[in-house]
C-alpha cells in the first residue's frame, strides 16, 4: 500500500489536483522547476562537488603561476637588444609592404580602360546574351539564378568553398577537443559551465513563440531554396534564412536541449557539408566536361516555369542552401560554446 501512496503523489491526477488548487503561480513554478531540472541533468553529491571545486581552484592557481612566468619572460625579453632590432625590422617591413601594395594598386588602376568607352567589358555582349537567351539556354525563369548556377557555376562553387574553409578555420581555432582518454578537457568543462550560466532556463514566452515561428521560418527558407530558379532567391538566401531559424531555436531552447535533436550534431554537419560540396563539384564537373567536349549531358531542360526544370539548378541550389545553413549554425555554436 505504501508504494501505491508514493505513486499517488506523483501521479497525473494528483498533480492535476495540486495544479487546480495552486492557481497560475503553481503552474509557473512547476514549469520553471521542470526546465531547470532539464537544463542540469547531472546532480553531484556534495562531497563530489567539493572535490571538483578544490580541483578547479588548484588548476586556477597553476594557471595563474604559469601566466605570471610567461609575463616575466616577456618583460625580460623586451629589454634585450634583439627585441629592439626585431621591432625596428618589423616596422620597416610594414612600411615597405604598404608602399609596395600601394604601388601595385595604383599601377593596375592606371592600366584600366577609360571610363565609359564603348568597348569596355561592362557594355559588351555578355549581359545582353544573358538577358536574351537565358531562359532558352538554362531553363530558369529567374535570370540571376540561371546566371550564378549555370553560366557562372564555377564562381558559386568557389563561394561555397569559402564558407566551408571559413567553418574549418573557426573549428581549428575555437573547437575544444576531448582528451586522449576521451574525457572532456578542463577548458571545455569551463566553457560549458560558463555557457550554461547565460542560457535562458525558464523563459516560457520565448520558447512558446519560437516553437511557433521556427517551423515557419524553416519552411520559408526551404521554399526560397526550392524556388530559386523560378523567383528571386536561391541557395544563399534560403540557407541564410534557415541558419537564422536554427540559431533562434538554439537561443530559445538552450544548447543542452538542442544537442539532443538529431539535426544539430557535429556528425550531421560533417556529412551534410561534405556531401553537398562533393555533389556540387561532381555534378558541375560532369556537366562542364560534357559541355566542353560537345556531348549531350542527358540532363533534361524541362519547360521553364515548372519546379522540375532548369537541368541542374534545383539540386545545386539545395546543396548550396544546406552548406550555408549548417555553416551558419556551426559558426554560432562554435563561437558560443566551442563545440557541438
Amino acid at each position: 500500500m505504501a508504494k501505491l501512496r508514493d505513486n499517488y503523489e506523483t501521479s497525473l491526477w494528483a498533480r492535476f489536483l495540486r495544479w487546480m488548487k495552486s492557481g497560475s503561480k503553481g503552474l509557473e513554478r512547476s514549469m520553471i522547476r521542470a526546465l531547470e531540472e532539464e537544463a542540469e541533468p547531472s546532480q553531484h553529491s556534495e562531497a563530489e562537488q567539493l572535490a571538483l571545486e578544490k580541483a578547479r581552484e588548484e588548476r586556477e592557481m597553476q594557471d595563474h603561476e604559469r601566466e605570471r612566468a610567461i609575463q616575466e619572460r616577456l618583460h625580460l625579453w623586451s629589454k634585450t637588444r634583439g627585441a629592439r632590432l626585431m621591432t625596428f625590422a618589423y616596422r620597416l617591413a610594414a612600411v615597405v609592404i604598404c608602399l609596395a601594395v600601394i604601388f601595385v594598386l595604383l599601377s593596375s588602376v592606371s592600366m584600366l580602360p577609360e571610363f565609359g568607352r564603348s568597348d569596355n567589358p561592362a557594355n559588351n555582349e555578355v549581359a545582353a546574351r544573358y538577358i536574351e537567351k537565358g531562359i532558352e539556354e538554362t531553363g530558369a525563369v529567374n535570370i540571376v539564378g540561371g546566371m550564378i548556377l549555370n553560366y557562372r557555376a564555377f564562381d558559386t562553387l568557389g563561394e561555397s568553398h569559402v564558407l566551408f574553409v571559413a567553418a574549418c578555420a573557426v573549428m581549428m581555432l575555437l573547437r575544444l577537443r576531448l582528451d586522449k582518454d576521451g574525457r572532456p578537457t578542463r577548458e571545455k568543462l569551463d566553457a560549458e559551465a560558463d555557457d550554461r550560466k547565460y542560457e535562458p532556463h525558464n523563459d516560457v514566452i520565448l520558447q512558446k513563440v519560437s516553437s511557433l515561428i521556427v517551423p515557419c521560418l524553416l519552411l520559408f527558407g526551404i521554399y526560397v531554396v526550392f524556388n530559386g530558379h523560378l523567383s528571386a532567391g536561391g541557395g544563399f538566401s534560403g540557407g541564410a534564412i534557415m541558419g537564422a531559424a536554427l540559431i533562434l531555436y538554439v537561443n530559445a531552447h538552450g544548447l543542452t536541449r538542442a544537442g539532443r535533436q538529431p539535426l544539430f550534431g557535429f556528425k550531421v554537419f560533417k556529412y551534410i557539408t561534405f556531401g553537398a560540396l562533393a555533389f556540387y563539384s561532381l555534378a558541375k564537373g560532369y556537366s562542364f566536361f560534357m559541355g566542353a567536349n560537345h556531348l549531350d549531358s542527358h540532363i533534361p531542360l524541362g519547360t521553364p516555369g515548372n519546379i522540375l526544370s532548369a537541368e541542374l539548378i534545383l539540386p545545386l541550389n539545395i546543396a548550396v542552401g544546406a552548406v550555408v545553413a549548417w555553416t551558419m549554425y556551426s559558426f554560432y555554436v562554435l563561437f558560443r560554446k566551442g563545440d557541438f
Partner: protein
Amino acid sequence: MDFLSMMLLAFILICALIVCLTRNLLTSIIILMSQSLAMSVIWILLESPDLAITEAAVGAGVTSLLFFVTLKKIHAIEGDSKDGKAER
C-alpha cells in the same frame, strides 16, 4: 535617384562614420546592424530581393550575433557595476 534612396545612402555613410568613431564596441555593433538594415532596403529599391533577404539575415542578424558572442567571450561588454569590473 529619388529622395528615399538618397536619404538611405546618407544614412549608410553616417552610420559607417559613427561605427568607426564610437568608443563603445556594443554601440558600434548596433549601429552596424542598422546600417546593414538600410543596405537591405537599398537592395529592395535596386530590385534585387534575393540580396535583400541575404543582407537582412546575414548582415543584420547573424554577423551582429557573432560579434555579440565574441564580445561576451572576451568580456568586453561593460556592465554598470560600481567597481568597473567587466561583467557580461
